[in-house]
């Protein structure tokens, strides 16, 4: 299908915006960035509206043989569509979040964000494995600059850690990609998805990809760059980091690791489940003792991402669908939580939880939004978090009930740290006079948070809108990995029917009358109960 090159246009708009931003003054740069991201949002919506659900797997494909060694090939399936929507939806909000808080080098800041948007759309739309890698890895440059130039006090350490950690993770994947291209004779992702690599090679390839995606995800124990980066990044940087960049790891697993290396994926289920279980419990416990709001949310991200990885490797469509919804939901919710932190950070310039308190009194509207996103993060029914956790845990349960058990304790812990955070910041007495004097949200902040709140509720009440475009693609992945699906730990089988109930006692009729009150419930359904 060669139609209007809408994907290229979506890449071009932020590029033009970024170049413009470099040459204009601060206030013009803000408007240019906002308009460019809004145009991309409109293009994204038209992409979604024109997406033919149940149609061809790859839609809006474009192809141009521009480079040596790889092709400029774009195209999306439902999974990529949803993640592109997430990116273009969050971008204008990020620009708004930085409207007043960023005052130095505004043009370059906005340019960095627009380049970031270009690269994120590119990652999800790339249909050539090397093109994917270029977009995937190029994101390091703007993010490094965003953290390093506009970040907090310890920004240099954080930016170096972010850059080198993620680079080291990715380079080995590049070697694996080159090997795959040589083996399969093509760099086209749709073709590679159908290629069966020998199982021995898959093990190594899987590990190479895992090294990259696990760092990006981030999975325990390679998550340590994330809290550092989040804490130091400006608010909008955190939103993009949590909202979209963390999804690159999950997208990588779903696009490459699972369908390209099914045997190896099955072989390493124990590893993924083990790391996910540790991550959920350990990072939730760490989050409980944080004094820094952003750090707390960063650790909660690691815990949520662990549910994503476990869901992806559940080898069934519920697990993968749940993981996808979790990624979308987490993108919205944690992005919104960072925005909430940003709202009060802009007023008091501290992320220290103890410096706040009793905000419900002077900022009631803010308290309401913050409550909604806290509940969504915990997974309260009616919010997107519930849908995400329920579907993914239902999927994981089919594979491993132990893992599900441990992951569910993580949800309880999650409720613990989020409610504890909320209590300390919003409830209680107003200990600090300056915090008590903060004004409630202004129109710009309404404009940032209200759309996210609406999306969270939409996804919570009617997730079908988001699941429908992805369904056939996830089914295709499930079919692809079916041959390698490992056996789950709960082997349910229908037993032979028994003549009597388990508590049937022959020849003791009437002797148990004294205890009848206690046994009543058990006996009622049993065959013995019928004899009374």
């Amino acid at each position: 299908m060669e139609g209007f090159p809408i994907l290229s246009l979506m890449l071009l708009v932020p590029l033009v915006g970024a170049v413009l931003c470099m040459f204009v003054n601060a206030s013009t740069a803000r408007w240019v960035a906002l308009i460019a991201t809004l145009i991309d949002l409109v293009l994204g919506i038209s992409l979604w509206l024109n997406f033919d659900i149940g149609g061809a797997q790859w839609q809006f494909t474009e192809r141009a043989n521009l480079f040596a060694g790889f092709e400029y090939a774009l195209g999306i399936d439902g999974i990529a569509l949803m993640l592109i929507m997430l990116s273009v939806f969050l971008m204008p909000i990020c620009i708004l979040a930085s409207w007043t808080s960023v005052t130095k080098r505004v043009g370059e800041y906005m340019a960095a964000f627009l380049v970031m948007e270009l690269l994120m759309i590119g990652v999800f739309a790339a249909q050539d494995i090397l093109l994917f890698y270029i977009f995937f890895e190029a994101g390091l440059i703007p993010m490094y600059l965003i953290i390093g130039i506009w970040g907090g006090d310890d920004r240099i350490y954080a930016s170096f850690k972010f850059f080198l950690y993620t680079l080291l993770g990715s380079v080995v994947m590049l070697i694996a990609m080159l090997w795959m291209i040589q083996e399969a004779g093509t760099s086209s992702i749709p073709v590679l998805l159908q290629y069966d690599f020998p199982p021995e090679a898959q093990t190594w390839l899987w590990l190479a990809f895992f090294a990259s995606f696990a760092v990006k995800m981030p999975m325990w124990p390679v998550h340590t760059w994330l809290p550092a980066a989040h804490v130091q990044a400006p608010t909008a940087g955190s939103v993009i980091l949590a909202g979209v960049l963390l999804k690159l790891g999950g997208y990588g697993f779903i696009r490459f690791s699972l369908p390209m290396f099914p045997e190896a994926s099955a072989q390493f289920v124990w590893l993924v489940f083990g790391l996910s279980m540790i991550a959920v419990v350990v990072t939730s416990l760490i989050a409980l003792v944080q004094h820094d709001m952003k750090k707390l949310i960063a650790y909660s991200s690691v815990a949520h991402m662990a549910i994503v990885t476990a869901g992806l490797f559940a080898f069934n469509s519920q697990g993968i669908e749940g993981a996808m919804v979790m990624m979308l939901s987490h993108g919205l919710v944690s992005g919104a939580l960072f925005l909430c932190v940003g709202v009060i950070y802009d007023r008091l310039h501290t992320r220290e939880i103890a410096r706040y308190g009793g905000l419900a009194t002077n900022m009631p509207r803010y308290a309401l939004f913050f409550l909604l996103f806290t509940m969504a993060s915990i997974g309260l029914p009616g919010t997107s978090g519930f849908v995400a956790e329920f579907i993914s845990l239902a999927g994981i349960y089919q594979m491993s009930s132990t893992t599900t058990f441990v992951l569910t304790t993580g949800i309880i812990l999650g409720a613990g740290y989020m409610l504890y955070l909320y209590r300390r910041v919003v409830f209680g007495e107003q200990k600090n006079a300056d915090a008590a004097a903060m004004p409630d949200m202004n129109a710009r902040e309404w404009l940032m948070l209200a759309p996210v709140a609406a999306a969270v509720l939409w996804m919570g009440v009617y997730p079908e809108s988001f699941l429908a475009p992805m369904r056939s693609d996830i089914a295709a992945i499930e079919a692809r990995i079916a041959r390698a699906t490992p056996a789950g730990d709960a082997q349910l089988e229908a037993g032979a029917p028994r003549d009597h109930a388990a508590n049937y006692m022959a020849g003791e009729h009437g002797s148990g009358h004294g205890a009848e009150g206690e046994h009543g419930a058990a006996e009622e359904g049993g065959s013995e109960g019928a004899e009374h």
Partner: protein
Amino acid sequence: MDYATSFGLIIPELVLTGSGLVLLMIAAFGGEKASRLVSILAAVALGAAGSLTIPALANGAGGDASMAFYGQISADAFSAFAKLLVYAAAIGCLMIAPGFFGQRRAMKPEYPVLVLFATLGMSIMVSATDLMTLYIGLELNSLAAYVLASFLRNDSRSAEAGLKYFVLGALASGILLYGMSLTYGFTGTTSFAGIRAAQEAGLSTGALFGLIFVLAGLAFKISAVPFHMWTPDVYQGAPTPVTTFFATAPKVAAVALTARVALDAFGSQADAWRQIVIFAALASIIVGALGAIGQNNLKRLLAYSSINNVGFILIGLAAATVEGASAMLFYLTTYVVMSLGSFVAVLMLRNGEGENLETFEDIAGLSSTRPGVALCLLALMFSLAGIPPLLGFWAKVEVFNAAIQAGLVPLAVIGIAASVIGAFYYIKFVKVMYFEEPVGRATKGGSAAHWAILIICTLLISPLGFLLTRGLQAMTDTAAAGLFPGV
């Protein structure tokens, strides 16, 4: 084969020789006033020589038809590509010199003449198909280079650089000569084709020693570890335009020469030298990366960066395939562009008094005072670090791809993992320019020629450069095929 044909094949070298001699006269009689004219004429001569080289590359010349003087020299596609690269780099170095030396009132017409003779030497180096021709080219280049290194006669560091370069260069030449004599002794010939044929059957211990000494001598010239020690000192001490020249043109020539010696003369014994090259490659990548971390002087840092880059180029050589040679040339091309760009950018940093700045403290917060230069340096550093979407990334992909195709997967994995160490100091460069408070020292500097070269280099390594990869790939493939006449 008559002499007319032979002379026809070496027309670019003849042009360089003739114009070099004429310009030498103009320089001698015209004095310092003539330096501008001589510079321009030298650049024109290089351009003319370059345009005369193009047909060989376009036709994919190779084999016996390209041999001149009974196998002494070969005007094949490989040498044509290397020559074009060398000439382009030399023209760049001629363009940036007046701005630098003019500041010190040290611009002399000898500079372009010496560059021209050095380039002629390189031209012979890359086309040599005989050990004798090779040595003549190498020494012609080296003699000119020693003088260039100490071109600022009144500057003690420049004089030291010249002396150091001379002593160590002479040592390297000695080692090379020793290896060549051993090779000659055990094979009975100095022609590459003859050596190759003599070693088809096997490699005797003496010939192996010859091979090792030849490679060691060449490793000096390309500053590969463990023969890299002179590089930081010479690069730091030499005047910056000369450093730029050293980092680009002679590096291309020496690498191309090494490739020809390894793949042609010793091509039948690739297994014998492969492990040496692999060691030198990995050691260069790691030492180049680790050595750069502690450096505070920008030129010294770029010297370590060039050691690091040679390591990646040698990975392409280790593959010992057409793809590997092609990847080497591709990498060399981007390396020349990146080095030229970054040295020019350093050259453009001057304080209010016009003194050149070359330490990290001086460029703190450069992005506020000189946003244009800082942005170009940012792109160049990320490109050197091999981060997409800059062209340096694709160069690395090419060499690693060649290594993987040759079955050297562990080499590729270790090499690329070590490249992350190198990324550390490249991003430190960016950190100093962008994340630190401006000191406002670098306030001016940069002539129109500097800006032109900097902008061209930055555009070439920017994502736009990817649009050129198809053409460049086709050229490097043709050139590499010229090195493997049998394939």
